[in-house]
C-alpha cells in the first residue's frame, strides 16, 4: 500500500483546525465564560464533569472550563509577546551580523553562541531567579532565552543570499546599507522567518507551561495551563480531569502549531524535502 504523502496535506488541515479552535476559544473567552474563572465556590469542590460544570471543578470549586479558557488567553498572550520579542530583536540582530560580517559579526556571534551554550529553559530559570516571577518577567526571560537561536537561523539565511546579484545590484545602485537590508535582504528571508516564528511559538508555549508547572511562572490565582497542572497533582487519583484538561490543551496547541508550521514550510519552500 503506498500513500502519496497524504500526511503533508493532512498536517496542514489538522494544524489549521487546531490553531483555529485555539483562537476561537480565546475570542469567545472575551465575551462569554461559563463562570468567573477565579471565583471560589466551596460548596462545589472537585465536582465531576457534569451539565453544571462541563469539565468539572477544581479544589476551590472553580470551573475548569472557564479556567482553561482564561488560561488559553494568558498562555497565548505570553507566548505571542515572547515570540514576537525574540523574532523582531533576533531578526534585526541576525540581519545586521549576517550582512555586515567582519568584527561586528564575530563579536556578536561569540556572545550569541555562549548564550546558546546554556539550555533555553535553564537560562529562563536563571533570569526568573533574578527578575522574580510574574507575567512580565516570564515574557522577558523567554524572549532572551530564545533570542540566540533566532539570531543564528536568520544570520544563516542572510549569509546565503548576501552574495546574490540583486543585493550586488542594490549596492551598485548606491543604496544605503540600511536600505538594502530592509528593502532587499529582509523580504527575501521572510519565508524562513515565518516558519521559525511558528517553531519559536511552540517552544515558548511549552517553556511557559513548564515554568508555571514548576511554580516560577504565572502566579496564582491567575490560571495558566502549567500552574493548573501543578495544582492538580495532589488530586490526581480522585479528580483525574483536573490533570487531563490542561495537559490536553497544551498538547493540542503544540500539535496544531507544529503541523501548521510544517504546512507553512511546505508551502513557502517547496524545494525542501519534508
Amino acid at each position, binding site marked *: *500500500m*503506498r*500513500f*502519496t*504523502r*497524504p*500526511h503533508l496535506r493532512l*498536517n496542514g488541515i489538522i494544524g489549521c483546525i487546531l490553531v483555529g479552535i485555539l483562537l476561537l476559544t480565546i475570542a469567545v473567552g472575551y465575551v462569554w465564560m461559563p463562570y468567573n474563572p477565579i471565583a471560589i465556590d466551596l460548596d462545589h469542590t472537585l465536582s465531576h464533569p457534569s451539565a453544571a460544570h462541563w469539565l468539572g471543578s477544581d479544589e476551590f470549586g472553580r470551573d475548569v472550563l472557564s479556567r482553561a479558557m482564561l488560561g488559553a488567553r494568558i498562555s497565548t498572550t505570553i507566548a505571542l509577546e515572547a515570540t514576537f520579542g525574540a523574532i523582531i530583536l533576533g531578526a534585526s540582530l541576525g540581519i545586521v551580523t549576517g550582512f555586515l560580517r567582519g568584527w561586528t559579526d564575530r563579536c556578536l556571534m*561569540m*556572545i550569541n*553562541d*555562549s*548564550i546558546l*551554550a*546554556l*539550555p*533555553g*529553559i*535553564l*537560562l529562563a*530559570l*536563571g*533570569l*526568573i*531567579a*533574578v527578575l522574580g516571577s510574574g507575567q512580565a518577567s516570564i515574557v522577558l526571560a523567554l524572549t532572551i532565552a530564545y533570542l540566540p537561536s533566532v539570531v543564528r537561523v536568520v544570520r544563516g539565511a542572510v549569509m546565503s543570499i548576501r552574495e546574490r546579484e540583486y543585493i550586488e545590484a542594490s549596492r551598485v545602485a548606491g543604496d544605503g546599507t540600511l536600505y538594502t537590508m530592509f528593502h532587499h535582504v529582509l523580504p527575501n528571508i521572510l519565508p524562513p522567518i515565518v516558519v521559525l516564528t511558528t517553531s519559536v511559538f511552540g517552544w515558548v508555549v*511549552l517553556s511557559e*507551561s*513548564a515554568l508555571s*508547572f*514548576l*511554580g*516560577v511562572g504565572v502566579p496564582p490565582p491567575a490560571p495558566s495551563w502549567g500552574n493548573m*497542572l*501543578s495544582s*492538580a*497533582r495532589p488530586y*490526581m*487519583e480522585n479528580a*483525574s480531569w483536573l*490533570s*487531563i484538561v*490542561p*495537559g490536553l490543551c*497544551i*498538547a*493540542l496547541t*503544540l*500539535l496544531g502549531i*507544529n*503541523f501548521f508550521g510544517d504546512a507553512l514550510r511546505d508551502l513557502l519552500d517547496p524545494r525542501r*524535502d519534508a
Partner: protein
Amino acid sequence: MVQYVAKRLLLTLPTLLLVSLIVFSIIRLVPGDPAQVLLGEDADKASVAQLRQEMGLNRPLIVQYLHWLGHSVRGDLGNSISTGEPVSGMIVQRFQLSAVVALTAVFLATSIAICAGLIAAWKRDTGVDFAVVGAASLVLALPSFWLGLLLMLVFGLKFGWLPVVGYVPFSEDAVQWALFLILPVLTLTIIESGVLTRMMRSSSLDVLKMEYITHARAKGLSEMRVLTRHVFPNAFAPTLTLVGLTLGQLLGGIAVIETVFTLPGLGRLMVDGILARDYPVVQGCLLFTGLAYVVINLIVDLCYPLFDPRVTAN
C-alpha cells in the same frame, strides 16, 4: 585527527569563560545588595557593611569576577544560604541521580530512534512510514510533565504496578531505587525519541538517495547489510549532534520531571534555590549545567569522526 581534537579543545575554553561570565552577570543583576539579601531585610547597617567587606563586594566587578572564577575552578562554589552546606557537594550528590535518569533515557531514545528512523526511511511513503512520522509528531507535542502525570495515573494509580512518588537511594535498596526510576526514565525516553526519530528518518532519506547506496545494492548486498553498514553510519552522524543537544537540554529541563516524580535531582535543587532565593545554589547549578552542556557537546564533536571521517579532513 590530533589537529582536529586540539582545535576543538581550544575552542571550548573561550566558550567556557563566556558561559561563566554570563552566569556571573545574571546573578549580579539581582536587584538589591547581595549582602542585604544574605542577611535578610532587617539586618543592621554595620553587619551588612561588614559582610560586604568580607564578600569583596566593594572591589571592582572584574576583580570580583576573577575571584569567583578562581574559586569555582577549584571546585568552591560557596555555601548555600538556607542550609550552609557547600554548594559543590550538593550539586555533585544531586547530579548523580539526574545523570542516571537523563543518560538512560537518552540512550534508550536514541536506540528507538535509530531503528524507527531507518525503517521509516527505508519504507518511505508506506503505512509504516506514515505511522512512525505520525507517532513522532504526536510525541513532539506532548509536554513531558503531562505525559509523566498520565503514566503515573495509569501505571501507578490505576494498575498499581509501580511506586508513584518518592525515592529510595541506591545504597539503601537497589531494587526499590530502580522501580522508582522506571516511570521518569520511560517518560523522558518517549518524549526524546520523537525529535530524534524525525532527525534519523530525514538523514537516512538523504543517504538512501546517494549513489554509493545504489552501488552497494547493485553489488548484491542484502538490504539488511546495506542499511546497517552503509546507511546507518552516515545517517547517524547528524543525529549524534542532536543527541548531544538533547542530553544538554535535558539537563536543563529535567527539573520538571523531577518535580512530577519528586526525585531529589539537580534540576529540583535549582528550582528550590530560586524559590528560596538561595543565590549561591542557583549560581552554582547554572554554572555546573552550562559546563556539563559544553562538555557533552565537546564529547559529541570528538565522537563525530568515528561515524563520519570526512570531518577531520577539513
